[in-house]
């Protein structure tokens, strides 16, 4: 039986996380179908149909799914689950929200945040903030798996699957979307950016974070933060990188005024190259940084900006 991948999108664009989850799904060896649940999201379905390895796209286009509320996603996915051996979703806040409900209703354990498919029923996943890797084998029954997308390459857009409409499922009517406050930014998304520059408590204020934003704009980078910087109100929650925030693995991660606590490292230590700027030469971040600069960030960051300008960035 085939594998069902639940798409991550915002009704307009298909997120990179979906293409990466499709890659994990193809490694299970069976056919891959993608479910796009949303409202007025046919463009998303069309994009999903182009992903290599996808055999069919199921489109549930209904107001019920506009915000992927967990209770309605649960009934929809359960209405389709019979035809699948495995159900995969990216470990985004959406995936983390609805997927365990599906697993519970199917009476099957969920395997969270896999980073590797060892065999169709065996997966690797980090535990203890990434300080250990567990190899876990699913039992009989359907597999419900969330995927840490930084561990998989996106499927190429070389396919041409058919899009099939599916009916909306029942509405439990127990929860209602009230509103949202989304961060607006012209910069790339934190989890998809090739370069991330993150600031910590060392930045001291929201005002000072603008220093990082200037650099980010020159490098086409995303801006991230430590929990301490978010708790202090320098930036909003969606900037947090770490065990309990976002997991990132860009080509280059620049940590500025961040000490390097285990919980922060858990979110960025799989970056290809790590650079750190910290005034304390004993800061733990230097133990994992490829390039460390011991300096006062208030001197180093303006200098960095200047150098980048010289380089024509």
């Amino acid at each position, binding site marked *: 039986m085939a594998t069902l991948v639940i798409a991550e999108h915002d009704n307009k664009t298909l997120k990179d996380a979906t293409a990466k989850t499709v890659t994990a799904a193809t490694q299970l060896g069976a056919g891959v179908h993608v479910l796009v649940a949303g409202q007025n999201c046919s463009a998303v379905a069309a994009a999903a149909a182009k992903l290599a390895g996808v055999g069919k796209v199921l489109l549930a286009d209904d107001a019920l799914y506009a915000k992927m509320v*967990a*209770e309605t996603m649960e009934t929809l996915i359960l209405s389709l689950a019979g035809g699948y051996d495995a159900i995969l979703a990216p*470990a*985004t806040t959406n995936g*983390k*929200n*609805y997927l*365990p*409900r*599906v*697993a*519970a209703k199917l009476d099957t354990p*969920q*395997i*969270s945040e896999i980073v590797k498919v060892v065999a169709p029923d*065996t997966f690797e996943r*980090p*535990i*203890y*903030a*990434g*300080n*250990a*890797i*567990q190899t*876990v*084998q*699913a*039992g009989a029954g359907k597999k419900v798996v969330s995927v840490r997308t930084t561990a998989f390459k996106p499927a190429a857009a070389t396919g041409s699957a058919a899009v099939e409409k599916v009916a909306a499922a029942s509405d439990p009517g127990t*929860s209602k979307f*009230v*509103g*949202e*406050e*989304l961060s607006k930014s012209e910069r790339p998304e934190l989890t998809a950016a090739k370069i991330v520059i993150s600031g910590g408590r060392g930045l001291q204020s929201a005002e000072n974070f603008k220093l990082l934003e200037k650099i980010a704009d020159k*490098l086409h980078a995303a801006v991230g933060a430590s*929990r*301490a910087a*978010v*708790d202090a109100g320098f930036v*909003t*929650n*969606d900037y947090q990188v770490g*065990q*309990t925030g976002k997991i990132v693995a860009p080509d*280059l991660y620049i940590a500025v005024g961040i000490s390097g606590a*285990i*919980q922060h490292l858990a979110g960025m230590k799989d970056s290809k*190259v*790590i*650079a750190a700027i910290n005034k304390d030469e004993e800061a733990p971040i*230097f133990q*994992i*940084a490829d*390039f*460390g*600069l011991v*300096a006062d960030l208030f001197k180093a960051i303006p200098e*960095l900006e200047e*150098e980048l300008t010289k380089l024509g960035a």
Partner: protein
Amino acid sequence: MHRTNSGRLKTSVSASLADARDELLIAGPFSQGISNAMKVLVPVKRVIDYNVKVRVKADQTAVDLANVKMSMNPFDEIAVEEAVRLKEKGKASEVVAVSIGPAQASETIRTALAMGADRGILVKTQGEVEPLAVAKILKAICDAEKPDLVITGKQAIDDDSNQTGQMLAALLGWPQATFAHKLELEAASAKVEREIDGGLQTLEVKLPAVMTTDLRLNEPRYASLPNIMKAKKKPIDEKTPADYGVDTTPRLKVLKVSEPPKRQGGVKVKTVAELLARLKDAGVL
């Protein structure tokens, strides 16, 4: 700012001093008598302290938890805090802390009681219990206790599954509000602001419901010494999974637990210009 989420109960106190104080503090909960106040259930998990760096056992079967400091899962402290605040505001009448785990999980329940929960339920288990089994036990407890709101942590910092609350909600057929940033409780519903990838989202869920906590919902209190003593007299019911008819046999098989690839520290550079040059050489700029 930099709070330690642990060790707050480790101070030992002379019993006589404590007993003397206890008399003064045993006065009834001040929310008593509020007619439509709710019952809140808070599952609390005993986990490795967040400051401990774990090591994988040489035989690659698990991580080494021998003689490691254990504490309440930090997200569960936030859950207890939120529940106790509801009680202090007169919105909740009773806060019940539940833990599923070994005998020592009673310490975790005591921590919750010292923070202000009223009573505890310890479901004693041996070995690992998967989130689905935890959720099934919690469901049976909810069937018996009939809480209006269950507040769990969004994830336990050991297994990082981020499942239990959602599974419980599904098994009960209740709505959920995960990753809560702010809670406004009304008579028959809850308005919850949630931390999502793009920012914040507000949902309104009908009660009864399950809510899971995120980091910025509140800052948990430290239990005061008198409250720690008072907590010793609060009741903890002991149960087993069999009492709830739940089979906790693991459904997943752990084949191996291994060390992740180690990242080597690199070089220190002297100047910003050198940093840039190195990054260019590395091909990432």
